[in-house]
């Protein structure tokens, strides 16, 4: 029996930060030195900004977590921990003493992410040791309708973004006639700036699978699909292994746990189409067709996959189910607000200090999410806005930071809860450019079925591009607003109906930035290159020639130790001089 355990985070983000190299070194150091260390792997703990992350525990020592671990330090770290002489400058969590990020974890409430970063996601035994598949055992001893009642009482709302009652959705599928029904997990997480589902799929695949088996039993389905984005190879790998292990243990397949209940679950890889996150388009895609949305009604609960009653829920909704069945509806309602019970997982990204994955009780203010959990704005810059809900959502300004995180309050701001992407923007982010960015996205991803979505988004994009290039006119704002209304009215599915939201919210809260672009031909954030000029301040320039050497078009001239000058006619505005200057002599005007 080894004395201590060293657990390394090997999620996609960890690996991108070099965790696989640390893993190899960890194995080597332990073997070569015959150390009494048990090494384990886990997925994403959520503190992506500190990756690679190593957790040490055992031998009666306090559990600690180290951030930004490098392979060259592994030997010292392990020796130090074993001999109680560890000195490490980035202890991010400490069981007994203050540490940099103790607060970050203390302010969270982990239901969905209960096992993420705790267990080895490829180990069924690890999941079982945390109480895994006990909820299924309990559910199978209950009447299906009683399970649906618990889900209804819990008040769980669809975590994909729209926030419809999950229990009601289950009831509809339960009520539907027919002896063939399907359940589907929507894991086609497509919002740019969102990675909640990726982390859950990678970190705790069995929780989602267990939720789906319970749902299938409650609604009377015997077949299911996990529709996963193909851009998430590790998620798919972990799910495949989890399905095989669960079937071998009798949790899936025929005669589950000896109850006579059968359920078959398949993985369907997406092929790259954002619109397939819309439920009717997703079902078309599973059927092997172009993923074009269809008219509702009929709703999937009556006529879904291959015309059979179908229930679709998002990854996070499914992952909540085993916890709710085990702990009961009342326990779930203890978190969150009256109308939005439970917790919500958010992916914090953009100009925020602690970017990563967090789970907080509903009802926390945006301010607390960003400052208490997220650590505030990166590099001490000024907060400008936070983008919620991806291309369907909107930008919430500083004046509304006291808004609480729940479906209804966020809707009031014009943004939406969405699936949980939270991209923080600072003074250097141009809000017109952000609106243009999202319109470019939806315009690309529009399936083309509805005219207003197909052509209207293109017209909006053209206008926004014009404005960011300094060619906008006052009439453009009116045109944008008019197009927005018509696109919302004239589109069949959520993609088109929400596509104008980023423009509408930025027009509402950051209209002065639009005006600055149109009237003054200036970009206040100094982000739109067409409206930007780099200049060298003669009194700050010491003539070190760093900028001139970096300039790709050689448009900076000046003698050594003399102030330099930029030839504006040749400048391509790449910003290389700006980043290379150590004396802040290059400014954006």
């Amino acid at each position, binding site marked *: 029996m080894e004395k201590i355990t060293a657990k390394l985070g090997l999620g996609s983000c960890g690996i991108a930060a070099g965790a696989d190299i640390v893993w190899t070194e960890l194995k080597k150091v332990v073997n070569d030195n015959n150390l009494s260390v048990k090494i384990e792997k886990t997925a994403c703990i959520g503190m992506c900004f500190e990756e690679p992350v190593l957790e040490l525990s055992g031998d009666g020592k306090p559990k600690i977590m180290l951030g930004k671990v490098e392979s060259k330090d592994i030997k010292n770290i392990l020796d130090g921990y074993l001999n109680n002489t560890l000195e490490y400058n980035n202890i991010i969590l400490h069981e007994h003493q203050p540490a940099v990020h103790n607060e970050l974890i203390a302010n969270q409430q982990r239901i969905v992410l209960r096992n993420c970063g705790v267990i080895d996601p490829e180990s069924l035994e690890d999941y079982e040791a945390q109480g895994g598949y006990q909820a299924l055992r309990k559910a199978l001893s209950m009447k299906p309708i009683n399970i649906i009642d618990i889900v209804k009482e819990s008040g769980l709302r669809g975590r994909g973004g729209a926030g419809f009652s999950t229990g009601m959705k289950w009831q509809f599928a339960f009520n539907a006639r027919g002896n063939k029904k399907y359940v589907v997990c929507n894991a086609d997480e*497509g919002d740019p700036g969102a990675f909640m589902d990726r982390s859950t799929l990678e970190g705790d695949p069995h929780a989602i699978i267990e939720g789906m088996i319970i749902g299938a039993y409650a609604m009377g389905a015997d077949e299911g699909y996990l529709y996963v984005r193909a851009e998430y190879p590790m998620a798919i790998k972990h799910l495949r292994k989890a399905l095989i292990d669960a079937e071998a243990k009798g949790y899936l397949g025929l005669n589950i746990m000896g109850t006579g209940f059968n359920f078959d679950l398949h993985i369907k890889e997406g092929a790259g189409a954002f619109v397939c996150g819309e439920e009717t388009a997703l079902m078309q895609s599973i*059927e092997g067709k172009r993923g074009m949305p269809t008219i509702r009604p009929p709703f999937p609960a009556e006529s879904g996959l291959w015309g059979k009653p179908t229930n679709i829920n998002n990854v996070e909704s499914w992952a909540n189910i085993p916890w709710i069945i085990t702990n009961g509806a009342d326990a779930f309602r203890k978190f969150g607000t009256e109308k939005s019970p439970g917790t919500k997982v958010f992916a914090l990204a953009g100009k925020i200090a602690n970017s990563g994955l967090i789970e907080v009780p509903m009802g926390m203010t945006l301010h607390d999410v960003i400052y208490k959990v997220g650590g505030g704005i990166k590099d001490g810059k000024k907060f400008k806005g936070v983008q919620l809900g991806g291309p369907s959502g909107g930008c919430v300004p500083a004046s509304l930071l006291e808004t609480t995180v729940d479906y209804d309050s966020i809707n009031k701001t014009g943004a939406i809860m969405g699936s949980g992407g939270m991209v923080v923007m600072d003074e250097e982010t141009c809000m017109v450019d952000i609106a243009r960015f999202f319109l470019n996205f939806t315009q690309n991803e529009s399936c083309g079925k509805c005219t207003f979505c197909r052509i209207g988004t293109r017209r909006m994009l053209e206008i926004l591009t014009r404005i960011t290039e300094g060619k906008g006119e006052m009439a453009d704002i009116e045109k944008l607003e008019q197009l927005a209304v018509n696109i919302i009215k004239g589109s069949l599915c959520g993609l088109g109906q929400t596509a104008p939201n980023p423009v509408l919210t930025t027009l509402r809260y950051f209209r002065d930035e639009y005006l600055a672009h149109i009237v003054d031909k200036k970009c206040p954030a100094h982000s739109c290159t067409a409206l930007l000029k780099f200049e060298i301040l003669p009194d700050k320039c010491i003539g070190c020639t760093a900028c001139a050497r970096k300039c790709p078009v050689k448009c900076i001239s000046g003698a050594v130790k003399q102030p330099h000058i930029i030839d504006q006619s040749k400048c391509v505005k790449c910003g290389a001089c700006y980043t290379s200057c150590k004396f802040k002599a290059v400014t954006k005007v």
Partner: protein
Amino acid sequence: MQNSRQELDAILSKFKGRHGALIPLLQEVQQLEGYLKKETMKYVSEQMGVSAAEIFGVATFYSMFRLKPQGKYIVRVCKGTACHVSGANGILNAIKEHLKLEGEADTTEDTQFTVLEVACLGCCSLAPVIMIGDQTYGKLTPEAIPAVIGKFAKA
């Protein structure tokens, strides 16, 4: 050629009679041949009894399917929100410049690299991010690009 036809037939027979099989089938065919060739799509249509129009419709709908030959290494440049606000455009330009890709061209002349823009790789905390093959590289700067691409250049 003979071999690849046999492999193709093996894929087709695996999917015959299964409902909803067209997308995974085309994914495997693309895996085999690198991209979806016109002749192959015709062959699939005849063998599977699916109209060529339907196959072409599916192939053009999903961004993952490629109708042109692609490079040995696929460079995916993330254009997600977090990467966008962290300077993804500069990264894309640096890659294109380094690989001497001009205008609409996305594949290098020696067919070593194909550069694609993708919506979001889900590594937002490491923005800006690119993926080469299945390796992810984060916190990039335009200056770092030559070294990253260099790891994959022809030996």
